[in-house]
Structure formats: structure tokens, C-alpha cells
């Protein structure tokens, strides 16, 4: 998917910045932004490149590093930490075999931190791409990963 095609579908209004970013990042295989792409978006909306860069840096669901197909984001805020009784962080690192900030060799999984997902009532929670999974247990976590792998093998 080339950026120009995504841009065409949005009005040239700065209110659409986040939508454009979300849409393009989803379409792009590596789910990340390169500098020239952010520049192109800034030019399209006629807003400063520094602004676009700032927005991308502010929201944890955007990235400027290449990522895998399934992006696992773990919440670092307090409720998730308090309700975590199985050590979510080391479990997921073990299951995926990568550390936070890394992507698996096969390009399937990326592990990242995020800020609060707004699901504190169901903490601990993680986000996998668009979907939030709450009330996690070790088994549930394994099942989520297994499901992703199944989808790939299907």
C-alpha cells in the first residue's frame, strides 16, 4: 500500500492526522513510519513535520521502528502491575522468546510497552494490534499467542 493512496482517501485537514497515521500504519507491512513518510503526511496536511513527529512520539501505538505482524503491547501503569499475579512481563518474553522492543526472527511478533490502555478494571491487560485482552492469566496469554500462530498456519 503506498502512502499516496491512503492520503487520497482523507481530506487535507489537520484533524485527520491521527486517522491517517492509524490507517497507514495498519496497511504497511512493517507497521512503522519512516521519516520521509511523516514528511509526506505533513506536506499533505500542510502542518509542520515537527508536529507530526511529536504526535507519533506521543502515542505508544505509533512506532518509528519496523515491527512484526502482531504487536503485543504491555501496560506499564500501576493497576496492571498491582493485579499481575503471574509476572506478565517475563511470561510474555518467555513465550515469544524476545525482550521488550524486539521483533521475532520470523517477523511475526513485536513486544512493546504502552501507557494505560483504559482497561484498568480488567487488569492486567495487553493490546495485540487493535484488540485489547483483559483479565489475563498465564493460560489466557498462551492461548492468545497460539491463536495468532494458528491464523498464520491456516
Amino acid at each position, binding site marked *: 500500500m503506498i502512502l499516496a493512496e491512503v492520503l487520497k482517501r482523507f481530506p487535507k485537514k489537520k484533524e485527520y492526522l491521527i486517522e491517517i497515521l492509524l490507517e497507514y500504519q495498519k496497511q504497511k507491512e512493517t507497521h512503522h513510519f519512516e521519516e520521509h513518510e*511523516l514528511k509526506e503526511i505533513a506536506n499533505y496536511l500542510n502542518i*509542520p513535520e*515537527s*508536529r507530526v*513527529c*511529536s504526535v507519533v*512520539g*506521543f502515542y505508544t501505538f505509533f512506532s518509528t521502528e519496523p515491527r512484526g505482524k502482531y504487536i503485543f503491547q504491555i501496560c506499564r501503569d500501576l493497576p496492571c502491575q498491582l493485579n499481575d499475579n503471574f509476572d506478565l512481563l517475563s511470561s510474555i518474553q518467555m513465550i515469544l522468546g524476545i525482550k521488550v522492543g524486539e521483533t521475532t526472527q520470523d517477523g511475526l511478533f513485536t513486544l512493546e510497552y504502552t501507557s494505560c490502555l483504559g482497561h484498568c478494571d480488567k487488569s492486567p491487560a495487553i493490546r495485540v494490534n487493535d484488540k485489547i485482552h483483559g483479565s489475563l492469566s498465564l493460560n489466557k496469554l498462551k492461548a492468545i499467542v497460539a491463536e495468532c500462530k494458528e491464523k498464520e498456519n491456516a
Partner: protein
Amino acid sequence: MPKIKINNLEIFADPGSTILEAAKEHNINIPTLCYYPDLHINSDCRICSVEIVGQKGLVTACSTPVKDGMDIKVNSPRALNARRTITEMILANHDAHCTTCIRNLNCELQTLADNLGIDATRYENILEPKAIDTSSYSLVRNPNRCIKCGRCIDVCQSVQSVSVLEIIGRGRESVVSPAYGKLIADVFCTYCGQCSSVCPVGAITEKDDTDEVWKALDAHSKHVIVQVAPAIRVSLGEDLGLPLGSIVTGKLISALKMLGFSKVFDTNFTADLTVIEEGHELINRISNKGVLPLITSCCPAWINFAEHEYPELIDNLSTCKSPQQMFGALAKTYYAKRENIDPKDIYVVSIMPCTAKKTEARRPEMSVNNEDPDVDTVLTTRELAKMIKQMGIDFNNLRESNFDKPDEVTSGAGAIFGASGGVMEAALRTVKEVLENKPLKILDFEQVRGTEHIRHADVEINGATYKVAIVNTLGSAREIAEQVKTGNSPYSFIEIMACPGGCVGGGGQPYGTTHAKARERMHSLYQVDRLSKIRKAHDNPAVSNLYTSFLGNPSSSIAHELLHTHYTNKR
């Protein structure tokens, strides 16, 4: 009118004013940190928190409008505690080595901590040191001193429309920096220095070149001369304990002599020269149907902006070098010859209100021998004040001296170059008189004076009416440049200065320059003009003498070689 109480004092406040404004109006001090008079209020820091009796939470005085009946306690124990806690937290994430900071004793954070009586802090310092950006000739950014007040971001975006700086990242890891955390030299920055002028702390400052100058002054082989820009004589005093707007020309010259400069010259002289060259350029373009509007070129931040954002306008730009660079070129040719000194042994320092001039002096075009820069080092007003203090000079008690020849005579026209509208007025005095071939009756072109960011005037010359515009700030320059680019500009001549109010509000002027302060300095410059014996550039005998003995005529080939330049599309 809302009747309110602040610290038990009953006052009538202007409707629509904020608590801070109402307090200031009645000389009640409320500490602030992120607030800056000419910028947007973003209420980031919460230092201005005050208590309103009967209300649960504290409110920020800078952003809360007054309401009838408000009973405000600026220093209630709760407000004071909040203010102290915030300050201590800022200090815990700050490189507070004050004694080795350029802003020592002139820093808003330091003053705040002092006023709050903070002598110990409850929090451990958690600063993770980051690299200092020294990539440019003009500015240094030290993120370890940044308190994220957002002033620089606002001035760069909403006043200058350049948008170099932003908050990058989030939370504790966020930094104020150019996009992608790049160095300032790797993004497009005009080096106007307005960000350094509004920064409350030592996080953005000019690149300090005072050591270079001390070294040159110490080297006996060098003939070190200095030129002083018009705007310095009305601002330097502020940094040396004198009242705002003091005219300190004579003391300034004495101080420079004491610092060890062999000759002290006035940039007003080459400002006069600029008027002649640029005036003739305008006359030529008008009579030969050349590219109009002609746009001034003495502001290097505007030139950087034009080359990058509006290369379409390059042919509109006057080819005249700035007065600083005309001086440099003449110093290493005409002056060297006259004084019989090898140009290689001449070291030229300029004192400028400007951080962009530091980068201008490094442009490859600004070298008559294509090797060394014509102007070796540029110091800002602030750096000169620093050197005067280092030397232990009692500035206020200095005797007055005069500039060295040939610059001892300069015109009032050159002096007002430091104010927005000044180049326009100076040029009009010459162009009108030359074209009409009879002495001007009224020298004051009041219609081009002022501080609004865009001003227009109709000027009558020989029965024809010409429209001119005067622009200051790059945000306004963008508006006018768009007009010219799309062919909708009604003007013949446009003056553009990057800083609010022109160089009197320059990015190298004393820290904390506001529109109001710039206006005071501007008044003083017009006073210098009023008191000048000569008020038209072409009446300056030293300039005429330079033409007869060296340059020939305005726009002669030697004038072109030394006094004119060209621009590059840098988009």
C-alpha cells in the same frame, strides 16, 4: 467591573482579565514560569497556582479569568506548598549547576527558587544527562537545563511559523527538540534566536564566542577592530544595570576601547551605505521595470527563511549584503589598503543584536578572499555585556568616547535600521530626495513607524504613489511572501525583519525581551535619529568620500563585487 480581593486587598479588575493580569495591574506579584507576556498561555507549569477561598482545588492565575466576588490568596499555605513542591520537582530533573551556567543570576528558575526560599530539596536528582547540541554557529541547546515550559515551541511555531521545536516523546522521557531528536543544524532553522530570547533558563543560548575574541585581543599580531550595530546602543545598558531604553553609545565605545579593540566603528556607517546601494537598486528596478516588489535583505534570518521556504522570491530580494557584511568586506579591502595592513592580520568582530548574524558571517559568499570570513566573529549584546563584566568595567561611570574615523559621522538614517520600519524610512529619505531632486521637507515618515507586525503605507514620489509594506516576525513574512509568490502583491518595496519590532527585539538582545521592551528601545533609536546632525544617508560626507576615493558610483562594478551578494534555493 468585577470586584475581587487579592491578598485581602479589594480591587476592581478589568472584566475578562486573568487573575495574574489583575494582580499585576495592582502591583501584586504572583510567581510564574511558563507564562510569557507575548505568547500563548498554555498553563503547563502550575507555578502560578493560587487559592480561591471556598474553592477546593488551586487554580492557575495565568489562565483563570477573574469573577466578581473572588477572594484570592496568592500565598496561602496550600498555594505556597504546591509552588514549592513543583519547583523542587523541576529542580530534581534539572542540571542545576548554576554557577557555571550562562544564565547564572539571570535565570527565571533560579529567581523563583530564591523567592520561594528553597534552600534544600526533598527529592533526589533524577536527571539522565543528554547530549548538548552545539551543531550550529548560532545556538546551543542544552536539554539538561530545559524545564519544558514550551515557550520556545510557541515562539517558533506561532510567531515565526518555522516550527523547528516540539515536544518529542512522552512523560518523563519527553524532550523539547527538533523532529526525530535531530540536531538543530540538520533541520531547517532560521537562527533568529527568538527561542533563546524567551527561554527562562539556560537551555537555549547563543553559541558563546567570547573566548575567540579574548584570544584575538591577546594576539599581538592581530589588528582587532569592532563594529557595533545600531540596536546595541539602546539595549546593552539593560544588561549592565541601566534602565530600559538607555542610550549608551559613548560609554559603549569607551568600554570597547578598554577591552582592547584597536578601532571601534559604527555599523551605522555601512547602514548608510546599504541605503545608498539599495536605494539605487530600487530606483533602477522602478525605472527599468525590474522585478518588484524589492524586498530588503539585511536580516539573515529572513534570508534563511526565504531561501528555504520561498526560493521563488529570490529575484525579489535586494542583492545588497547586510550592513554587517558590507563592513566586513570593506574592512578587509578598503580599510586594509588605507591603513596599510595585511588583510590577513585584520580581525573583525561585530556586536550584533542577533544570533542569525553568527551564521551569516560563515556563509561562503561572505569572504572577499574566498578563504577567511570577512567578519571573523560575531558577538551578541549579551556576550558583550558578559565581556564588560569579565573585564570588571564600571560601565555606568565610564566617560563617553566617539567612534573612530571614518565612522565618527553617521546619519540618523543608519541608526533607525535597528527598528522595524527603519530601513524603509532611511531608504525613502534617500530615494525620494534623489528622484525628486529637491530637498525633502519632512524627514519623518511617521506612516512607516510602529510595531504592528504588518504595516502598509502609500508614499508619494514625483506625483506617483508607491505602496510599501513593513513586516516583522517570520509568521507575518510568510503571509506577505505568499502574496508576492502568487502575484497578488500591490507593493513596490517591502522591508522584512525576522524579530518582533526588528533588531531592537533581536534574538541576541538581553534575555526576556518582550514587545513592550522592544518598543522602548525603538523610541530611543528614533531619538538618536532626531538628535543626529545628519539624518539622510546620502548626506553623510564619509559615505560620499568612500564613493569618490574607492567605490566610484553606487552599483559600480567594485561596489557589486564587495557590497552585493546572491542567494541560493535551499528547499
